[in-house]
């Protein structure tokens, strides 16, 4: 129980390829849409958090005079951590209305800030010399170990992408909507064995924003509140080579149970699940690290359509990073889908979503943030 609710949520007006907006304007476009959703303007906002750009830049650009600022930047799940930190700040009275923004010109690269590993960092010294070419060759490194230890087949890995395309086919805003088969996935271009193109996320432009306030004020806004009932966060390592266990994310196993304990929920209470899917193995790790499946059982769970439309645990219902959109820091879009599902406004709406659990990952397996969204406060 946190006593905080989402009263505004929106993505950028467009998603996909947006060459006519720079990165900071993608933040602003999403923020303005979220303010309109909440029926407020920048002068009503006194807390700001963002990652990928500096909160100073956003506060100035949007005309916000904050009493609370958070620039936590741990990769694509930073926005989940911002939600958790905002809950603490709102509860402590450090601010009354928080705006969390994301914008990224991931595809068009307009006004995007660079990313490089310093050659004197540990990753720069002990990983970069061996030829990694970004996330497709790093984030993917643990999965052969998982496949051997648990007997996961290439077909089972491919099925993750197939199921998410099933969801995307119901979503007019998804980048890819045409249904695909396991054979299609395995026939797509090899990027980094064992990962084919269709098992890797999209690279698109877009943004999203959330507005949070204390629950006792939440009914003063036009939208039905979506309550934040629990949160969790953790970090593990900036180096994929130094994960404690190649078949599990330690940060997932800390952040997930913390959020569920905070919300006082058990697995059977979860109606809808989002697991940040930069690559096809992420939902498998997420399902097991969160405890929805036993070790080694998530590939069968997905294969048997349990996370697909009509399944017992609908997951990544927007189509995910594999089919909906992925700007680089996807966590914001996962939370937007959780909010839509709880509000009942999603494109592929699941029946009776009272509780949506949203798990984000950041900096490859470096960090995790988890948020429990709910129709009623716990």
């Amino acid at each position, binding site marked *: 129980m946190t006593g905080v609710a989402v009263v505004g949520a929106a993505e950028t007006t467009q998603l996909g390829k947006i060459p006519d907006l720079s990165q900071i304007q993608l933040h602003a476009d999403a923020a303005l849409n979220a303010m309109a959703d909440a029926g407020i303007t920048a002068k009503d906002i006194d807390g700001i958090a963002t990652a990928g750009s500096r909160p100073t830049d956003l506060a100035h650009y949007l005309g916000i005079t904050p009493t609370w600022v958070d620039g936590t930047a741990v990769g694509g799940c930073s926005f989940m951590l911002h939600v958790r930190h905002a809950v603490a700040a709102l509860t402590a009275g450090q601010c009354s209305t928080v705006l969390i923004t994301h914008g990224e010109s991931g595809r068009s690269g307009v006004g995007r800030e660079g990313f490089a590993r310093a050659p004197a960092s540990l990753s720069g010294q002990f990983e970069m010399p061996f030829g*990694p070419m970004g996330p497709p060759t790093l984030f993917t490194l643990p999965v052969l170990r998982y496949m051997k230890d648990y007997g996961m087949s290439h077909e089972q890995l491919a099925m993750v992408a197939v199921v998410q395309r099933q969801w995307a086919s119901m979503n007019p805003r998804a980048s890819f909507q045409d249904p695909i088969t396991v054979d299609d996935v395995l026939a797509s271009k090899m990027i980094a064995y064992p990962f084919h193109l269709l098992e890797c996320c999209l690279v698109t432009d877009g943004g999203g924003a959330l507005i949070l306030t204390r629950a006792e004020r939440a009914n003063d806004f036009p939208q039905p509140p979506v309550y934040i009932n629990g949160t969790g966060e953790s970090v593990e390592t900036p180096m994929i080579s130094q994960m404690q266990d190649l078949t599990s994310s330690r940060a997932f196993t800390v952040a997930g149970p913390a959020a569920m304990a905070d919300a006082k929920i058990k697995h059977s209470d979860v109606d809808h699940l989002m697991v940040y899917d930069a690559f096809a193995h992420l939902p498998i790790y997420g399902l097991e690290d969160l405890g929805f499946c036993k070790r080694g059982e998530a590939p069968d769970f997905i294969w048997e359509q349990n996370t697909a439309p009509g399944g017992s645990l609908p997951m990544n219902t927007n189509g995910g990073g594999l089919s909906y959109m992925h700007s680089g820091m996807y966590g914001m879009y996962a939370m937007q889908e959780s909010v839509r599902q709880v509000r009942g406004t999603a494109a592929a709406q699941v029946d009776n979503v009272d509780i949506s659990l949203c798990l984000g990952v950041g900096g490859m397996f470096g960090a995790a943030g988890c948020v429990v969204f709910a129709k009623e406060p716990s």
Partner: protein
Amino acid sequence: MTESLRVLPMPTPETQHFWDGTREGELRLQQCNDCQHVYFPPRPFCPKCSSRDVQVMVASGRASLESYVISHRPHKAFVGPYAIALVALEEGPRMMTNITGCEQTPEALQLDMPLEVTFEDAGEDIYLPLFRPVGASS
């Protein structure tokens, strides 16, 4: 001095012993004198018990193949698809590396196969620790 096509490391005071070691044909790890934990990457304290009483040790160079990807993205330092590998050192730590002396294919790269360290002159006075199948010539 040859120009390297790889991204080269920039040693720091805390890691200099490692890069001095590879130049001298040694794979150097560190061990805690209080709890005996053997660890990598380098730092002047034990990440397990926080003790500053640690020493440099020379690893056996024996390892096994723990996981990898075969990148199909073009890289100026490699010809064709190449494996980026994670190897488990006999002493416990895991490190990223490349596998030399064998085909860069799933058939040739079997998980848990035994490997041994070899050092490659990467230019600019940097020698990189690579691994090859035991008995192979790299």
